[in-house]
């Protein structure tokens, strides 16, 4: 049989050391309940999440995709441009179904407060200046709320049988690790020493205050001003009863992520920074015993169909340019040399990564010449993710 012959030339050199990630097997497995797409900013997480969700739905799953900050035209094509924090069905998808939603961080936070506190208390919290700033700031809140929303949708799906697969996009953080770290940071703050310190003047008699505490309060007043400190104290006092709840919820979502029904996909681009982030993330997932399904390398340069090397192409282009300057053929050879150099660099980067992480299954998605902003484009990405050639 001829097709068993090993490939030769530069094509063979780009063969992955790691095994191929079987995206369809992952999506078809009824045991897969949650797919989390993570990675550094600008590697195509949102598009990948949407493409995976669509592919799963068209292979028969009942899917909801939770996106964080989709490009406007992608959001339009999914019908989720108006943020209302509720999954909306996407038309024209079958035999399964696809719902999509865009996370509204502040609204999610408000909903948690409303569901946990009495109406009066909830009002006091929602109106507090410190709460307003906290719930709409980016530092950690978005990550926490993405986890919170995932937990909510999962509970709802369990109770009502609405969905059998949840695909989650993660916030565009400084680092992919923020997604895992932020919730813990927020909840450890919420029941940490600092909170007790803020509550101390309101609750305990002053004599329990140590010298250290006095120093801290004085310093805070100096730096933040008395008004900010007062707002924080009021907020903390009102929020006090909810803290336990918050911590519990964060822990529940954390263990949900560790459960076997969850699959993490690390998304990267064939660039040193993105692959380095991906490596950190893989190590972290392993440490936290989170189920890693594999690596998706987006935006790979499309392969060439010839093994003419960059150097040979440049040499030939130079020879041609001597006799006929500005010839079309020498232009084509220079373009080919440029492409071969990029391919070589990308292949080397991926090989290095695979050598360091031999057990991480990988799929490589070639860059498309144009942008993706409709279902048809998402379908194309989906088939490329699954290893089918571009249609």
């Amino acid at each position, binding site marked *: 049989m001829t097709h068993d012959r090993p490939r030769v030339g530069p094509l063979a050199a780009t063969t992955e050391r790691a095994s191929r990630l079987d995206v369809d097997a992952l999506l078809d497995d009824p045991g897969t309940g949650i797919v989390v797409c993570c990675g550094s900013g600008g590697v195509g997480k949102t598009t990948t999440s949407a493409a995976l969700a669509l592919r799963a739905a068209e292979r028969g799953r009942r899917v909801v995709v939770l996106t964080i900050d989709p*490009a406007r035209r992608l959001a339009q094509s999914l019908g989720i441009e108006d943020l209302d924090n509720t999954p909306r069905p996407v038309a024209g998808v079958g035999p399964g179904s696809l719902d999509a939603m865009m996370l509204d961080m502040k609204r999610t936070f408000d909903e948690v407060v409303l569901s946990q506190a009495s109406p009066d208390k909830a009002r006091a919290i929602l109106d507090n200046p410190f709460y307003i700033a906290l719930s709409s700031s980016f530092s950690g809140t978005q990550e926490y709320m993405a986890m919170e929303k995932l937990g909510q949708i999962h509970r709802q799906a369990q109770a009502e049988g609405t969905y059998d697969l949840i695909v989650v996009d993660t916030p565009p953080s400084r680092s992919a690790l923020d997604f895992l770290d932020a919730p813990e*940071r927020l909840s450890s703050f919420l029941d940490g020493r600092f909170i007790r310190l803020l509550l101390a003047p309101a609750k305990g008699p002053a004599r329990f205050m140590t010298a250290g505490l006095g120093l801290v309060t004085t310093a805070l007043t100096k730096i933040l001003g008395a008004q*900010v400190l007062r707002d924080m104290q009021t907020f903390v006092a009102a929020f006090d009863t909810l803290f336990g709840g918050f911590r519990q919820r964060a822990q529940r979502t954390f263990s949900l992520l560790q459960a076997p029904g969850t699959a993490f996909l690390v998304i990267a681009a064939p660039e040193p920074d993105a692959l380095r982030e991906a490596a950190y993330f893989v190590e972290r997932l392993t440490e936290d015993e989170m189920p890693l399904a594999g690596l998706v390398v987006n935006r790979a340069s499309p392969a060439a169909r010839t093994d003419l090397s960059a150097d040979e192409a440049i040499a030939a282009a130079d020879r041609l340019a001597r006799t006929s300057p500005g010839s*079309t053929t*020498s232009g084509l050879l220079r373009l080919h040399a440029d492409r071969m150099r990029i391919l070589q660099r990308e292949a080397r980067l991926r090989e290095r990564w695979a050598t360091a992480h031999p057990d991480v299954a990988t799929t490589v998605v070639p860059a498309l010449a144009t*942008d993706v902003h409709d279902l048809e484009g998402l379908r194309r990405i989906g088939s490329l993710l699954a290893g089918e050639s571009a249609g």
Partner: protein
Amino acid sequence: MSPNHGAGHGAAHAGGRGDWPEVDLHVVSGKGGTGKSTVAAALALALASTGQNVLLCEVEGRQGIARMFDVEPLPYEERRIARGLPLGHVAPGAVHALHVDAESALLEYLAMYYKLGRAGRALDRFGVIDFATTIAPGVRDVLLTGKVYEAVQRNARNKSAMVYDAVVLDAPPTGRITQFLNVNDELAGLAKVGPIKSQADTVMTLFRSPRTVVHLVTVLEEMPVQETVDGIAHLREARLPVGGVVVNMVRPRDLGPADLEAARTGTLDREALASDLSRAGVEVTHELVDSLLEEARDHAERRALEDSQRTVVEALGVPSYELPRLPDGIDLGGLYELAARMREQGLA
């Protein structure tokens, strides 16, 4: 390259200070994946090539500067890492780098303004430092921008510190840049009065002055260009000064318009190509000819996308600058190459 210079900006001349002679703080932002850190680093080198002493700051904890310049990870301390290109008669200035982290910035701030040695440690013990730098809304950004402000506006409190002609900030991405620089708004409603509020006000005054510009890095694709358009609108709304648009990773220009059109429509002359190839001493196979034609078509599609997006960028009415995609990736040599392109086009 076809830089589109907006009104009021002259062309570069050797030893001159480019299109932004009044600027002390160059903020560089861009969508993730467009190469904003690369552009910030190259801009620092380009400015140093005009003889200026430059500080390059990063605030996102990634140690990207250390990797690009191939030096040890940077501490919270200004380190000399490179010098500009020696161009003509101008003696190049030096590039220093600073990795700003919020925690060190807070402790330094406390020590500098409040002489809080012991209390600073107590704050740390009670988790206040951690709170202020990670959870407290807006405080983190006030600290990071505050340190950048201090580097631009050196005063007597920081006696032994180096004074720079220009500071380049590798800033958070486009989606967050206005919020990051608009520290005032972030704190509004939280701190209406008090020292932290007045600190934010002082920083804002610099950011809104003609001494600051925000450059946005993009590539010629729909999403990043749209984000650039939105980013500029947000910056203007917040009355923050918009600088230039730096178009990065532009594809090579080895084919002229007629060839591009032929490549797109599949009418490139196969026979002529084959005979040229054999004349150039290349062994001609069907695969080779097919591959070259297919590559030409991909390239032509890409160039068409770039052209349509370039029109959008030009309509923004701000100066734009174009940098080539370097096939071998970015190393120190690549940074110098990009710096030279910036000088040619007058970004520095």
